[in-house]
């Protein structure tokens, strides 16, 4: 019996493939609709996944136990609002340092959108000025040279740490760069260490365009000697609620509740992710509209196919085919047609993703593959069911008499 089922399926597939090969142009154009739809959806998902992974990597490189204490209300900060209000100073850092679960802490002055110049070249950079404790706080590691030490913080020498990525941009090489000078806002700084790169791809927008200088060395560009925020690291791998409460309690003695925010990596990550997911879902939903258009194309051609084959349907009915046999045959054909488009769309997506991977962190996961093939089969069924029903409901006598 199972052998018979196989034979049945073989006949259905063979009939479908015969029709496809007889109408190659038509078959291709019909599946093109699904091809484009699947490609749009899969590519957008691939870009979304890639971007999400990139952001995740950036956060992971800093460690999940990084806490940033910032001036201003958390809601406003999360929504990208300005930083303002109070200013932290060394007293806050000293008080917070007394919390046992904090392993390292430093006040930080940060200046994004700065320019770094050397070797006749100019690059965008974010200046981060802090004590030597920035090293454990930001998980900094050197490729060449050395990191900040306690004496550097005390002396306030004009020394700087840049990433190898930045060195390659400025000097075209990361070798023999130690000891060379770079200009930061018209101040000259000596390179003492090259940091290991933390991310790849997406050019200069990552953590690798951060340049680190001792806090005291920042006075020329930060004349008010103010802290942008306080960065700290906890002993545990993840920040626990008690540590957070302790930090808040210390600061509440001096400031109002709305004047500062204690931000965990995880929180920031979650917010960024959720915004990102929404944008990506909307884009994918828009792309999915083209799948519906593709489905309508399939439905249209299936109606044509049914009309062309009325006589064949009549013959099959005379030979004992049930309505359900005819229904099944046409649905199988429309699913095959749609799957063909889905498969081609997926193949092109893989090629495109492979091509752009060097420039942009995109990747296709198993879920996208399953979704693409699942959705295209689904479209084949949904849009094939009406034409197939029309074929199955033909009266055998009218069908076989049809010329």
């Amino acid at each position, binding site marked *: 019996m199972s052998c018979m089922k196989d034979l049945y399926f073989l006949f259905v597939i063979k009939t479908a493939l015969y029709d496809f090969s007889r109408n190659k142009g038509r078959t291709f154009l019909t599946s093109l609709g699904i091809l484009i739809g699947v490609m749009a959806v899969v590519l957008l998902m691939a870009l979304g996944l890639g971007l999400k992974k990139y952001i995740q990597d950036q956060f992971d490189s800093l460690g999940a136990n990084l806490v940033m204490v910032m001036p201003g209300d958390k809601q406003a900060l999360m929504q990208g609002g300005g930083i303002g209000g109070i200013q932290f100073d060394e007293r806050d850092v000293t008080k917070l340092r007394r919390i046992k679960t904090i392993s390292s802490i430093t006040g930080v002055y940060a200046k994004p959108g700065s320019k770094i110049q050397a070797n006749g070249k100019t690059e965008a950079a974010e200046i981060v000025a802090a004590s030597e404790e920035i090293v454990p706080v930001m998980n900094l590691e050197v490729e060449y040279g050395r990191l900040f030490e306690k004496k550097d913080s005390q002396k306030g020498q004009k020394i700087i740490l840049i990433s190898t990525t930045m060195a390659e941009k400025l000097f075209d090489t990361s070798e023999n760069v130690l000891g060379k000078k770079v200009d930061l806002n018209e101040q000259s700084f000596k390179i003492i260490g090259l940091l290991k790169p933390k991310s790849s791809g997406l050019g200069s927008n990552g953590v690798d365009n951060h340049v680190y200088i001792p806090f005291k060395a920042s006075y020329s560009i930060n004349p008010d000697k103010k802290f942008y925020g306080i960065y700290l690291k906890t002993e545990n791998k993840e920040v626990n609620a008690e540590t957070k409460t302790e930090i808040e309690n210390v600061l509440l003695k001096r400031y109002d509740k709305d004047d500062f925010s204690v931000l965990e990596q995880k929180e920031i990550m979650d917010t960024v992710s959720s915004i990102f997911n929404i944008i990506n879902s909307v884009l994918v939903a828009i792309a999915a509209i083209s799948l519906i258009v593709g489905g309508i194309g399939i439905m249209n051609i299936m109606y044509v196919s049914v009309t062309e084959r009325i006589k064949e349907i009549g013959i099959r009915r005379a030979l004992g085919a049930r309505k359900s046999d005819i229904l099944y045959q046409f649905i199988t054909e429309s699913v095959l047609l749609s799957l063909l488009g889905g498969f081609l769309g997926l193949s092109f997506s893989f090629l495109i993703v492979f091509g752009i991977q060097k420039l942009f962190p995109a990747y296709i996961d198993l879920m996208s593959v399953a979704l693409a093939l699942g959705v295209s089969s689904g479209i084949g069924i949904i849009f094939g069911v009406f034409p197939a029903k029309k074929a199955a409901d033909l009266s055998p006598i009218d069908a*076989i008499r049809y010329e």
Partner: protein
Amino acid sequence: MIKLEEVTKKYILDRETEFAALKNISLQIKSGELCAITGPSGSGKSTLMHIIGLLDQPSSGRVLIDGIDVAKLNDNELSRIRSEFVGFVFQQFNLINKLTVLENILLPTIYKRKDLGYSPHDKALYLTERFGLKGKENSFPNKISGGQQQRVAIARSLIMNPKLILADEPTGNLDTKTGNEILRLLEELNGDEKLTVVIVTHEVDVAARTKRIIKIVDGCLV
């Protein structure tokens, strides 16, 4: 085996006019008969064949197959009887051009509901050999002659071991010599295998070769 009781078939042409293709036909065809339904074109003989073959339903009257009133059967059950009880042979052969000779012969078996008790493939090979189609198994119907196509159609009608063969103008598209061969084949099936064979024809000499002639004019038996 087949019994028609006062069968009438009407077609509605427009709101006021009706056309009766069959009027009060009552007849019985017994198991093992070789008979012809004959009459001029437009007399209703094809309609009668379609009703006997369960491709069409009468407007009134009863059709009984082995005592079962077919009006009480649903589409699935009618399909089953078409599959197991009747084998059709048509004037236009009605083979499916995208399937090979062997696949055309096997086509009814993919719609079967029960175990046949024999290998359809072996039987199909036996039939091709018996009907002189050996070597043509993998040819496509449009690459073989009309006589060969009709023999494929007869082989296809036999693959399910039916009790009744309904042939609608089986010689209509063939020259006299080939037509005679096909008729001889149908006679053999009736003689050797005791199959009931009903041939619809407008040709008097074709009808003359059968044992019983059912003549129909303007929808009435004469």
